């Protein structure tokens, strides 16, 4: 059996970066989606990202509401939550932390192939846009950095591989340059402005498509 490959689409990658760019001085988190039918195959495409919080990531009530609504949204659209992402407040911090690990483990308990992503903030502002995502697998209840990161030369053939769609970092950098992060709405912001669409972020998608 060949190893499974997980590819993060430009759209999903851009939304993660835009979310981090929208709230520069706080931690942010969200989830990654893939089509339900692709999850059992050897080639999984992470089609979208849904931004959740940018305040108090360690408090649970609104996270619970968000996950319940996400489950309904996924059910109606034939998608599933395939991953959890987080960008930390501190520039150099690449830890999931206690709360982040708990949320990721919750995602994993529903979808056994789920993974976690931490954003390497220092790679968000490089001159040449490069991959800023650090992928994590769970082993015995512990989240650890996955061996096969995007673009890595050495591959561990016994483990699954993570990739980015071509040009994803460049597309994301251009989106930040176009100030698209001002259009991005997470669940936190949606609660203040309920007319804003946190599930799809159509305004961002339309601009990314151009």
């Amino acid at each position, binding site marked *: 059996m060949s190893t499974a490959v997980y590819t993060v689409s430009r759209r999903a990658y851009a939304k993660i970066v835009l979310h981090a760019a*929208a709230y*520069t*001085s706080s931690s942010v988190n969200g989830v990654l989606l893939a089509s339900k039918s692709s999850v059992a195959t050897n080639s999984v495409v992470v089609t979208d990202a849904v931004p959740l919080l940018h305040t*108090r990531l*360690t*408090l*649970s*009530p*609104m996270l*619970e*509401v968000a996950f*319940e*609504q996400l489950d*309904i*949204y996924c059910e*109606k*659209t*034939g998608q599933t939550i395939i991953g959890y992402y987080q960008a930390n407040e*501190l*520039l*150099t*911090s690449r830890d999931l*932390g*206690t*709360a982040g690990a708990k949320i990721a483990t919750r995602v994993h308990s529903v979808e056994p192939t789920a993974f976690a992503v931490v954003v390497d903030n220092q790679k968000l*502002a490089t001159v040449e846009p490069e991959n800023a995502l650090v992928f994590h697998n769970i082993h015995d209840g512990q989240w650890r950095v996955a061996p096969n990161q995007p673009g890595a030369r050495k591959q561990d053939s016994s483990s699954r591989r993570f990739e980015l769609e071509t040009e994803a970092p460049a597309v994301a950098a251009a989106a930040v340059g176009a*100030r698209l*992060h*001002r259009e991005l709405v997470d669940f936190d912001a*949606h*609660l*203040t402005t*309920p*007319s804003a*669409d*946190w*599930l799809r972020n159509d305004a961002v998608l339309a601009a990314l498509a151009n």
Partner: protein
Amino acid sequence: MARLSNAQLAAQLAEFRQRCDGPPDLVVQYGQELITNGYADQLGDEVWGFYEQLFVAALHTAHWALAQSCLDALHERFPSSTRVRRLDGMLHEAKGNLDVAGQLYRGILEEDETNMLATKRQIAILKGRGRTQEAITALVAFLDTYHADQEAWLELCDLYLSACMYAQALFCVEEVILMQPQNPGLHLKCAEILYTQDQVAMALKSYCRVVELSPTHTRAWYGVKLCATRLLRTSGTGGANRGSAEAASVPKSAMLRDLDALATDRLSAVYASTPAATRTDQPTVRTVVEAWLQAAST
């Protein structure tokens, strides 16, 4: 978006200053525009507050040259100000030169050990180094001296939350609530901490306090709904330990059902004006919320 006039830009920035918020990249954009247009000179004495605001926004967005020019202007006007020296320290902090910044703050404190802002920056450095426990210890000592400093209590609350120390975080919010009992945001924070600690009945009370103070608070109505649904589900099974404070504060089922129905009404009304789905495979937020409200009630 229509272009804003200089006066409009200045007014918007003044409003951000007053509220102590405003997205940093927007502040930088507006501020740079005002400077380019030569309008900064017309701000009168407000210009110093404007430079300080722009300086901090430039730090958030890593516009070092802009930050330096704001700092230079402030330094020229207030050459011996410790407030300006503190800003210099913040520029070093933002660039990652934490040792240099720390020395600057120590220098300020050697001249004036009661300089509260320099002490706060020293605590911020500990936080910036990821030394949460030390930052907590330093803030606790700070609050011994400045007991009425609400910003410090709330910062301590957030530090405790980042360390998942919920009981301590709750204590901090309650301190601030004593000083500001009418602030819905504080009761909201209290409610969310209580819920996270699994004290659902107590959380419900706090959420109710929020909607009492701020009747259109969507986030709090979600909280009311969440708590009421959960308590209704567990009320038959004995839920919380009998005899505990939590168990004693669970409202009667009839009351819970009323609260649940009220929250459902309020939330439905909030979403009634948002777009409905045009295709079943492309649900909108509203269709999802309607399905959620129904599922939670059954």
